[in-house]
Every structure is written in structure tokens, then in C-alpha cells.
């Protein structure tokens, strides 16, 4: 099984449809573009480009408030999907980034920094 951060592992998993080639990030038992069953699970490289950023300064739970401020990102991956993650505060839109994994509110989450 591929390591998947949504299941506690250090990895980013996406799905690819054998029938139409569409790539999707949110896990389903079918391809949302063509409906074909059982899209293949693949591990992403962890590389990406920053699409959007928002530094969260007001959180709503005690667990997340302990981390304030934290930078939420949308990252476009070379594999062809967009994902939400955390990252360094100085990241700008268009920056090339790569993923590590950090603890946040009791879980492990993807955290992006500028690619070296």
C-alpha cells in the first residue's frame, strides 16, 4: 500500500483512471470524469508549484490554535492534481516546492518548503 498522509503515513496518494487518463486527488471507488471503476492508486513525487496561500491567524479549536499562525497552501503537482497543505510562511505563488511531513493537531500533514 502507498504511504498516505490522510491515513497517517508519510506520502501523498492520488488516483489515475486507466480508461480515460484523468487524475484525481480525492479518493473514490470510480473515476469522477468518466465513471470507470477502480482508478489506480499512485504515489506523488511530493514536488509542486504554489497556486495560492493564506496565513491563518485566527483558528477555531484549541488544537489548531496552538499552531497559529500557520500557512495554508494550494499546491499544483506535476502529476496533475491540486492539493491543500501547509508550508513555510515566506512562500509566494509560483514558488517550486517539495513536501515533508509535520505534526499538526495530532496528525501528520504535508508541509511544503522551497525546493532545493
Amino acid at each position: 500500500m502507498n504511504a498516505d498522509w490522510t491515513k497517517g503515513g508519510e506520502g501523498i496518494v492520488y488516483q489515475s483512471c486507466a480508461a480515460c487518463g484523468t487524475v484525481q486527488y480525492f479518493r473514490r471507488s470510480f473515476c469522477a470524469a468518466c465513471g470507470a471503476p477502480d482508478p489506480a492508486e499512485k504515489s506523488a513525487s511530493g514536488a509542486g508549484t504554489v497556486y495560492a496561500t493564506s496565513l491563518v491567524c485566527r483558528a477555531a479549536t484549541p488544537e489548531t490554535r496552538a499552531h497559529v499562525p500557520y500557512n495554508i497552501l494550494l499546491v499544483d503537482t506535476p502529476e496533475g492534481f491540486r492539493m491543500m497543505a501547509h508550508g513555510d510562511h515566506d512562500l509566494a505563488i509560483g514558488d517550486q516546492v517539495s513536501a515533508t511531513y509535520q505534526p499538526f493537531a495530532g496528525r501528520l500533514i504535508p508541509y511544503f518548503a522551497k525546493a532545493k
Partner: protein
Amino acid sequence: MSFITGVGLTSYGKHEGSSSLDLMSKAAEMAIADAGLKRSEIDGILCGYSTVSPHIMLATVFAEHFGIRPSYAHAVQVGGATGLAMTMLAHHLVDAGIVKHVLVVGGENRLTGQSRDASIQALAQVGHPDYEVTLGPTIPAYYGLVASRYMHEYGVTQQDLAEFAVLMRAHALTHPGAQFHEAITVADVMASKPVAMPLKLLDCCPVSDGGAAFVISRERTGSAGVKVRGAAQAHTHQHVTAAPALSELGAEISIAKAKAASGLTISDVRYAAVYDSFTITLAMLLEDLGLAKRGEAAAKVRAGYFGRDGEMPLNTHGGLLSYGHCGVGGAMAHLVETHLQMTGRAENRQVRDASIALLHGDGGVLSSHVSMFLERVR
């Protein structure tokens, strides 16, 4: 054909001790009286939802509480677009002859009924439970992401966004029912506490208590007629992670379909009522709808274009940003104000000409859109 025959709106802010049903009832009573109808003449009810008092059958709970036995009733959930989505449905229900008078109602004690943290947390759940909510985003963060991208692509600045907060506050100052009564400046917005950058506290609508209601009827019930000319929706995604490119968002799709449904164009519009949960929401929607060119909405605000005396008066009650936001009722206040303007009853806020109005609602993170044209007929 359908007419909006009555409107009702409470003040927004704190209604200590009032339940969601109390606020819905208060607004409903005003709307039915405004339409010149009796409760017994209401044969359809559409209502929104309450995050404070969730229920699987809110429409019948309300109908029983209010004392109506309708032949058609259910709740509708489209986030911030719920009010206009209900109005669109009511329009089709009366047009199809299913019912004669539909009561559309929303209300919630969102401010005093739960903590601010509880409200923020409840709303953040519009995010994906596995891929987004686990990262600790808030509604301002979802819109903060969109704002950062919009500013990047179209050269919009934080000062530009602040103009919308200042405009909505200026409008709210002329409405006694608004939640906020102190004038603000661009400098105040810039200096307000960071919430989810680039959005600061004054870029965000407040949490409020309040209620709003309308009656939509097959025939007009009084001399003034506010007719639904046409409406349309578009739903492109739910989660911001799955949103299409900025140039392909739902507002452009729904306005194109609403123009076709009504036979009207933007140049016909004399009054605008546009969803404004955040300053970025208003800036983007005005540009998506064609009420301003890309990146130019803020310049139009500075030039007075969207003011009460401007060419395109906008949200003259103060909008969500300054009249307040009580959930489903929040954006319903935009329609109440539009109705008052179209029927010449907006008192000190009255604009010269509101003969044709464009309303637009947004739910989720620019996920669900409803565009609607109203026309004053004599």
C-alpha cells in the same frame, strides 16, 4: 410568472433570548403582512437551515410553530446561496401552478445561540473532511486562498479590497437595522487584526442573529409589482481544492444563463445586490457578473459608482459585511433591501431608479451560484 409580494427583515446583531424559530417567525409575520395576506393564504413554505438548531425537517417544524398547514414544504441547503435558490424554486412553483403563495424564510440566532468558535468550526466543515478540514482551515482561509490567487492574477491589492468594506459600512450607517454603526476607513481595515491573510477582520462579515422572509406569489397582491424576470444557477465544485480556474467559476455561468432566461443584459440593470461574505467575494463577483471589468471594481468603488447616488447602487443596506450575516437570512436581506428600493420604500436610502435589479448569491467557496433579475412593473 411570479411576483415578490411581501418582504420582512429583522435588525441584525444581537437578539438575546430569541431562538432561530423566533427570528424566522418574526420575519415571516412581517413578510405576510407586507404582502397583505393572511397566514391561512400561505400554501407553500421553503426555509433554510440553522447551524444552532439543526433539524432534518425544519420546514415542517417551522410550519407547525408558526401555525400554517401548507400543501408544499421543505428545507433547502445551498449555503449562502440558499435564499436566492429558494426564491428561484418558489418562482417556478407558483409559475407551474403548484401553489399560490410561497413563504420563503430564513433566520438564526447564530451570534448569541453558540460561541464564535462554534460558528467558525461549523462553517469550516464545508471543506473536505479528509483532505482539507484536517489542515485546520476556516471559511476565511478558504476565501483567503482564493483572494491570494485573484490578487496575483489581476493585480488587486489589499487596499483595493478594503474599499468594499468601507463602502458597505457607509451604507450600513444609513440603516437603523444594521449591526454596525461606526464609520470605518481603508486605514482601519488595513490595521484590523489578521484573520486569514490577505483577509483581515474588517474584510470579513460578522456573525449575527437575525431573520428575513419573502412571499412569492402567482399574482401581485398590491399595486406595486416586483416580478421575477429570470433566474439561473451553476454549481462547479464544492471544495476549494477542486475549484476550476478563476476564469471558469460559476458566477459567469449562472449570469449568462440568467440573462438568457430573462432576456435582459447588464446594461439594463439599475440596482445590484451581490453576495459579500468577504471583501474578495464582492470584488470577484462584481467582476464575474460584468458589473466591472477585471481588476477594476475597486476603482469603481472609489469613483462612487456603487454608492447610493452612483450609477449602480449596490447593497444599500450594508450587505453581509456591515448589515450582518445570520446564515441563510444573511443574503436574504439583500433581496429585502432590493424590494424596498424597487417599491420606493427605502426611506433615506432610496435610490433614483431601481426599476431592474440583479441579485447574485454564492454558497460554499464560490461553489454554488444563483443569479436573478427582478423587474418593477406598474
